[in-house]
């Protein structure tokens, strides 16, 4: 879990150590972001992670800038003033008595020619009659307007309620979009990290496969009759195979003072059972490799202690030893 790193203990620099430790942590984490950093990324650098043709990078800002429509106030009407009563006016009106007396009406008509000597009342009567009609028409018009305003106010109230609902919805939309953008950014960052990890794992897998193939080829090479190959090689004058060259190199290293002068039990057992191909004392062809022998080789190859045991027997090859056991049996 923890990292190790070398520190010059006699010359400790805490700042440097802390920098190393933080570098290690960053490497372990990969690209790690705090919540605030993710929000910053979500607000300004979306195009780095997302396709700008599909997602607007200023989406959140756009929503923030949207001004609230506010409430639509209905038109307030003052309390209606009672309309004056419409008066009917015609050419008889000026002669009529308010008490309805016919005698007075008759007298006024009788004196009418005398009145006309002073001025002509007909235009006045006409104007007054027309004014009465206009008044009536105006009253009707006002009444209609009032009705219209009332209807408009009712419409306004309904629209206002719709706007209020829409405003709540906008707030919700903003929240949802904001969260979506943040989460998309987070996912994009995660995806990048995962992509890097997948690439790393793929690289390791590729390396392991190549290594496995190499080991298998070693097994196959060691499984083939060595002496036949030696004879054929000698007869044809062709250069020895790479595997054989490797074995010779290894043996020569051991003879010139290899590290393992003591032999383990396993090594000695193998040594006794194994005849070194180099000495040619066991010219028999090896038995076909089976699964167990194959795995034994892999294990041995991975364990330097076993592979290098038995200095006095310069044949570390495990396949022939197993094959010899089979032969002995």
């Amino acid at each position: 879990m923890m990292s190790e790193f070398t520190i010059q203990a006699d010359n400790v620099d805490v700042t440097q150590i802390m920098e190393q430790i933080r570098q290690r942590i960053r490497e372990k984490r990969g690209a790690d972001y705090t919540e605030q950093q993710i929000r910053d990324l979500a607000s300004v650098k979306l195009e780095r992670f997302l396709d700008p043709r599909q997602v607007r990078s200023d989406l959140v800002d756009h929503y923030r800038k949207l001004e609230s429509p506010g409430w639509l106030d209905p038109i307030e009407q003052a309390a209606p003033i009672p309309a004056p009563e419409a008066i009917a006016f015609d050419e008889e009106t000026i002669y009529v008595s308010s008490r309805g007396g016919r005698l007075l009406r008759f007298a006024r008509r009788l004196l009418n020619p005398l009145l006309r000597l002073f001025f002509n009342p007909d235009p006045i009567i006409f104007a007054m009659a027309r004014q009465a009609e206009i008044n009536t028409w105006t009253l009707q018009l006002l009444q209609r307007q009032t009705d219209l305003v009332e209807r408009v106010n009712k419409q306004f109230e309904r629209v206002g309620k719709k706007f209020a609902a829409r405003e709540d919805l906008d707030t919700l939309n903003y929240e949802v979009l904001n969260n979506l953008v943040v989460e998309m950014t987070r996912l994009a960052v995660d995806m990048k990290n995962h992509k890097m990890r997948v690439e790393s794992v793929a690289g390791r897998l590729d390396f392991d496969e190549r290594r496995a193939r190499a080991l298998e080829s070693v097994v196959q090479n060691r499984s083939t009759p060595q002496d036949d190959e030696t004879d054929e090689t000698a007869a044809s004058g062709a250069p020895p195979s790479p595997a054989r060259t490797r074995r010779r190199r290894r043996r020569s290293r051991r003879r010139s003072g290899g590290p393992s002068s003591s032999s383990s039990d396993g090594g000695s057992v193998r040594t006794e059972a194994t005849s070194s191909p180099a000495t040619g004392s066991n010219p028999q062809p090896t038995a076909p490799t089976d699964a167990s022998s194959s795995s034994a080789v892999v294990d041995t190859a991975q364990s330097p202690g076993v592979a290098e045991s038995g200095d006095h027997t310069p044949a570390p090859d495990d396949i022939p030893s197993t094959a010899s056991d089979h032969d002995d049996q």
Partner: protein
Amino acid sequence: MKVAVVVQRYGAELNGGAELHARYVAEHLARHVDVEVLTTCATDYITWENKLAPGVEMVHGIPVRRFPVSRVRDVDDFGRRSEVVFDERHSIASELAWLRSEGPTSPKLVSYLRRHGTAYDYCIFFSYRYYHAFHGIRVAGSRALLVPTAERDPVLGLRIFQDSFRAVRAVMYNSFEERALINAVADNEQIPGVVVGIGSEVNAQPEPSRFRQTSGIDGPTVVYVGRIDENKGCRELFEYFQRYTRVSRALTLVLIGKAIISIPDHPQIRHLGFVSDQEKFDAMAAADALIMPSYYESLSMVTLEAWALGRPVLANGRCDVLCGQCTRSNAGLYYESYEEFAETLHTILSNQPLREALGRNGRTYFNTHYTWPVIEQKYLDMLDRLEHEDTGNRKRTTALPGWFARRRRDQPPARHVVDQLPSGPAVSTLGGA
């Protein structure tokens, strides 16, 4: 020369940071000058209830003059007033009311200083944030020295204390970070100041084996010494340590101190409670490192003690002072997250050469800056400097605003003020403490 040490509480049994600091300074200065301690009758820093008798008594050979506290602290009232001055726009009157509510309100101490202050050549006030220091500095005037013991908390942003920092003759800082904070908030660079800190009485011969025998703790150990409180970062420490134990089954966390919060029931966490100094030093010497998880420290004495014992420190990097101390001393690592906690702890525990090198650096740092002869000399040098310095007729304290101005709500929230102050460890090129 006669010097008064003025502190909110004083006693041989009191272990609070500033109070212990004051006692150590008083006792060591007493070897060179005539020292008298002026303090209250309180022993509890929450209530300030009068527990000790007023009058004069001798504590470790130092005369201690105690004055009663006029009112105990109403915790609810103090909390409400704290919210007002820390988080809202407020007035100077609100800050003064907050100060009275905080206490220890001892008008008799201030009155004594007013009447008999001239009997002392200098008055060294400890802890700027309390009633005695604010009013005492205004009374003592040019004879006042201040040991602020300031931390990065909202109190530092209150307007009334800016005058205190400018009104004193000299300021004895605990750390470079504290000086940077106070200079930034009070603009008092012109006031003579020196980073002093505090020495520590460390047993030179601790016996780690004795601790291991008595406690039965074997294997790698880290130790925390101090009040086990959330404010000290202990809750975070418990969380981090329990996570860390999933990968380290052998490590033991030893806790020494009074527990204010509950301690997790975990086989790798051992609470020893309050122990003697000898046991404490034995435990620290037996530990592989000291952990100091506190967010706010003006100067951690325990950290210095660990360094004196040659032990590395793992500190909370969010505390500027601790981070700065570790950086300057090259004697400790610090963390700001669990990942850093785990990595730094693992580094200290697994790398013995590094551990020893950090310990050596810590011991050198302590011996260079925090042994008592060094501390005493810094105080004496400052007193000598002030003795020869022309005080002039400058009026150092500024009068409080008038009745109306005092009630004008024109002061910003203290928390905002502190948030705007520079942060981070102060990297000194002086090689100082």
